């Protein structure tokens, strides 16, 4: 089992969700985050105050998957999130020790496999 974490552009989040759906990856959490990964800084001006916006809005996906699903998940993320410009984000894959489905108490592989499969 792995936990796939992806930081993507907010405007690509819908495309990512659609790509994950096509890849049959159903269990997803997302959160809005701010970060900086090397993209152009925006310069904004409010009356006399000019600022560089060093943090950009991003969306963070967290997806727990069984090992067979790691590559399809990564492919879907690349497919949905890539624009080719600096600032498309990152994917991190980390080992996952345990997963438990709260409703049933199912553990690990069964817990990260969608109901009905």
């Amino acid at each position, binding site marked *: 089992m792995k936990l796939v974490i992806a930081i993507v*552009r907010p*405007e690509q989040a*819908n495309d990512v969700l659609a790509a994950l759906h096509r890849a049959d990856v159903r269990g997803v959490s997302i959160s809005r985050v*701010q970060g*900086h*990964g*090397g*993209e*152009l*800084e*925006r*310069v*904004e*001006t*409010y009356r006399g*105050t*000019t*600022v*560089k*916006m*060093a*943090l950009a809005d991003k969306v963070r996906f967290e997806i727990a998957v069984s090992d067979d699903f790691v590559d399809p998940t990564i492919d879907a993320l690349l497919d949905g999130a890539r*624009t080719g*410009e*600096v600032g498309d984000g990152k994917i991190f894959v980390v080992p996952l020790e345990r997963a438990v489905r709260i409703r049933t108490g199912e553990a690990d592989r069964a817990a990260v496999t969608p109901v009905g499969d």
Partner: protein
Amino acid sequence: MAATAAIDPAATAWMLVATALVLMMTPALGLFYAGLVRSKNTLNTFMMSVGALGLVTVTFALIGYSLAFSHGNGFVGGFGHLFLHGVGFAPRPGTRIPELLYFAFQATFCIITAALVSGAVVERMRYRTFLVFLVVWSILVYPVLAHWVWGGGWLQHGGTLDFAGGVPVEMASGFSALAAAIVVRARKDYGRQALLPHNALFVLLGAGLLWFGWFGFNGGSGFSTGRPSVLAFTNTLLAPACTLVVWFVLDLVRDRRVTAIGAATAIVVGCVGITPAAGFVSPLSAMLLGALAALPSYALILWRPRTRLDETLDVLAAHGVAGFLGILFIGFFAERSWNGVADGLLHGNAAQLGHQALAAVATPAYAFAATFLILRVLALFMPLRATEREESIGMDVVAHGEEAYASGEGAILITAEDGIEPPVAVAQP
């Protein structure tokens, strides 16, 4: 001072207030529209209305007022009032208020009408191009149509009645919006993603302020404190209330829930519907008009998003269609006993319906064709749209360098000693 002897102080006092009420409708519209778009386009959407407050006031003072309200031919006015020449404290012929005030009142109409068209092109039109469009449109479209019904043009001479702007405001903005949506084309995500209103409270507050301002819009269009103004004022209360009630019923039938954004839309539709008829129909007829106005607009608002026509904020449904209905309604329900001017078909004057139908055909044709051509010609000189990338980022940051909801987190102050550098890429991965 023979010229000022005919000034009516009460009428002048009311028209000063009415003008301020109508001016407030443009920022109210900005709020209404800003609530209906995504958060990343909030400022840009509002700034389209603010652009009209600046540019259209200037064009109307310098050229537009003359083209609408000075002596000319049946199609367009002349240059008699160019640069406000001769517009002073003497009464405007046909009224008992100073022409200077008459001009200011009419200017607020031109401003909001131009701002209304922005609803068709929000979230993707390039801001600088939109500003140029405002200038050209406010010279070539609004004054011509205002001349037709109010400035001594061919519709006015033919007998068409339009109390507060079914022709130059409502049908003009609605059918111009249709043309603009066709030329500028759909947003890149239209039909692929759900593009939802980001703040329904703005929409409700904007609609409420629009209704409030509309009392000046319709109530002021009698240019007096006499019967037409009182009738129009009260009808502006009655008609939108009936539209709201019918809209609630339609919502309940369709989904068993009454929607807030639907209610805000209903207020606007009702105000639009009564606008041309406000001083010409009885209070009960106004209530019927308000109720009827809900039906075609509701249907179009449901149907339009299923098409490829990204007329984004439904200016055609809310203004074009409801204005069309209001203009025709006069032809049936006008009552001389209430308005002192003319009867409609139901009161024995079938000819009035013909006059109204003529306006209901000619206005959409001119507004659509003129706007279509203006934008096609502008497109030869400058891009109409932002790039796809800019559309993704959002027009607030791209066009204005500001955000409506800036958190301030991660903002690094650029001090005067540093100077303002162009954006630099750091830590290229």
